[in-house]
Each structure stands twice: as structure tokens, then as C-alpha cells.
């Protein structure tokens, strides 16, 4: 990550120096900083709205309600983990919070679920859980839509169906890969 960005600085400044355009490079850096500062308050406005809505959903018990609905699906995906009540609760809390975009609530539940699966010796299901968390299962792409809204999109959420299809394909590929890497056993 840091390497990619530092390389961009290094190579670009070096190229500007070779072309004798160091003044233009200096102007570009300042302009970029200004753009970032102009964009931040617009982004904050949208993110605050969605964080407030998320907080209400969390305190209103929406994540718990969703978790209960998810249990039959989780029994299919985690047959061994679902037999342990504590692990099933952690799994459903993790997935429910992820679907609502409540990352702060999802991580502790996810860690409890990983520990539970480890204790049960369900190594395959442990990898399934991790891949489920590295794929996005969020119902509404609030962050991407916030950025679009902050930059003047007329309908920031019109990308939602595309996000769903793309997430579903990625998740299917990830789960299939875990299965294959596990030698087809489950």
C-alpha cells in the first residue's frame, strides 16, 4: 500500500525533474491537497447521515432481527458450527451486522465465531467465515454512495443492483475456491 503511493511520488517527481517541469509538479501537489480538503466536508456530511441511521438500526434491534432470519441459511453454510448454540449466535450476529454495514459490531462477533469454529475443529468452516467477511455482503453501499453524493451525483444509490450482482459473484467465487483448496471435503 504505502509502497505503491511512495513509488508514485518518487517516479512522478523524477519524471517532472527530467522534463524540467518541477514548478508544474509543485502546483499539482498543492492543487491535490486543496481538492482533498474541499472534498472532506462533503464526504463527512453524507457519512454522518448514514452513521446516524446505522446507529439507530443497531440500537433499534434491526441487526438482531436480521440475525434471526439468517439462521437457516447459516445452518447450510456452517453445518458443524451451527450445532453449537454460542457459535451460531456469533455467526449470525456477524453476518447480520455486516449486511447492515455495522463494521464495529461485526468484528467482535466475527472473532468470537472464529474462536468457536476453531474450538469445534471446523477448519473448513473457519475459512468459509473469513472469506464471507472479505467479500462485501452489505445491503446498501452507503460509503460508495456517500462519495458519489458528495461529488454531485443525481442518484447516488443507482449503483446498488450492480453492487449486489458483483458482490454475489465474488462471494460465490471465494466460497468455491475455499472448497477446492480444501480438496473438496467439507
Amino acid at each position: 500500500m504505502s509502497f505503491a503511493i511512495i513509488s508514485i511520488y518518487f517516479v512522478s517527481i523524477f519524471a517532472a525533474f527530467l522534463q524540467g517541469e518541477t514548478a508544474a509538479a509543485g502546483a499539482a501537489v498543492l492543487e491535490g491537497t486543496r481538492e482533498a480538503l474541499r472534498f472532506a466536508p462533503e464526504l463527512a456530511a453524507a457519512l454522518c447521515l448514514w452513521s446516524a441511521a446505522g446507529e439507530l438500526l443497531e440500537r433499534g434491534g434491526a441487526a438482531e432481527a436480521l440475525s434471526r432470519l439468517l439462521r437457516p441459511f447459516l445452518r447450510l453454510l456452517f453445518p458443524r458450527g451451527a450445532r453449537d448454540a454460542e457459535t451460531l449466535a456469533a455467526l449470525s450476529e456477524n453476518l447480520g451486522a455486516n449486511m447492515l454495514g455495522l463494521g464495529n459490531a461485526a468484528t467482535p462477533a466475527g472473532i468470537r465465531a472464529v474462536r468457536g469454529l476453531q474450538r469445534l475443529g471446523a477448519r473448513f468452516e473457519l475459512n468459509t467465515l473469513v472469506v464471507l467477511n472479505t467479500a462485501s455482503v452489505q445491503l446498501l453501499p452507503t460509503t460508495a454512495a456517500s462519495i458519489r453524493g458528495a461529488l454531485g451525483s443525481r442518484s447516488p444509490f443507482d449503483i446498488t443492483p450492480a453492487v449486489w450482482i458483483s458482490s454475489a459473484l465474488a462471494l460465490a467465487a471465494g466460497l468455491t475456491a475455499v472448497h477446492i483448496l480444501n480438496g473438496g471435503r467439507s
Partner: protein
Amino acid sequence: MPLLVLGAILTAAARGTDVYEAMTAGAKKGLLLTWSILPSLLVIFPALRLLRASGLPELLGQVLQPLFTLLGVPEETGILMLLRPLSGSGALAEASELIQRHGPDSLIGRTAAVMLGSSETSFYVIAVYFSAAGVKHDGRALPAALLADLVCFLSSAWICRLLWG
């Protein structure tokens, strides 16, 4: 969207939650999130301006263009795809810069938004889950997650081109 906010207020109120207090707590989280992203914005926005001013993207674009064209992915999203699994705030900053430069309702702007919205910071998630739970990584979750990211980027580009190309 106003309906969703209304629904959230009603469910929280029905449970006896202090709605005002919950909303201010949420707004604070939004501010803290922006605050945590701002340093990345301040480093990545100038980096990309600088890169464009250097004329290197055109040069590199000509070399890599056949590959991107073959895959059906806009070459402008190259850096975003590279950053996405590694850094959440870095990817957010890069996607923002792309969306700002090309416009939120342009094909490239939409592709960047869909890529960002349909993936997660895979390396970070794997590191947190395995280390916090004290479990050893058996070398299966990471390749599976990265394959999923690749599928996510390709399908994002294809779906956007189909819908808005």
C-alpha cells in the same frame, strides 16, 4: 432514502431508545470516520495529480492498454484494484479521486464506486480475524479472498459497461 431514515427512527423509538442521543452518537462516528480517512485523502489526491502531470499514465496506459481492453476493465481503475485489498482508506481516497475527476455519473466513476462498494479490505480482515482469534492461517483463506476480489473487479467493470456503457 428518507424512508429508510424514518424507518430507523421508528424502530429505535419503538424500543425506547433515546433517538436524539443515538443520532448524535452516529453523527460523531461519521465525523471520526472522515477524520481517519482525511490523511489518506491528503496524501493520495496530490500523488495522483502529480502522476497525471508527469505524463507517465499515458505512457504506461499505452503499454498496458491491450491487457485492460482484453479484460474489459477501464485502465484508470488499475491503482484502485491494486489498493483495494490492502488499505480501506487508501482505496476510498483513490476511488474518490477517480469519481471526482471523471464525474460521479460517468462510466469510470460508476465502475470505481461499484468496485469499492462490492469488496472489502481482504488483507486487513484476514489479519484481524486470524490474529485476534489466535488461530494460525492455513494458507487457504487468503488465495480464496484474493480470487474473490479479482472476480469482483472484473464483474464490476462488465456490469457497469453493460448498464451505463
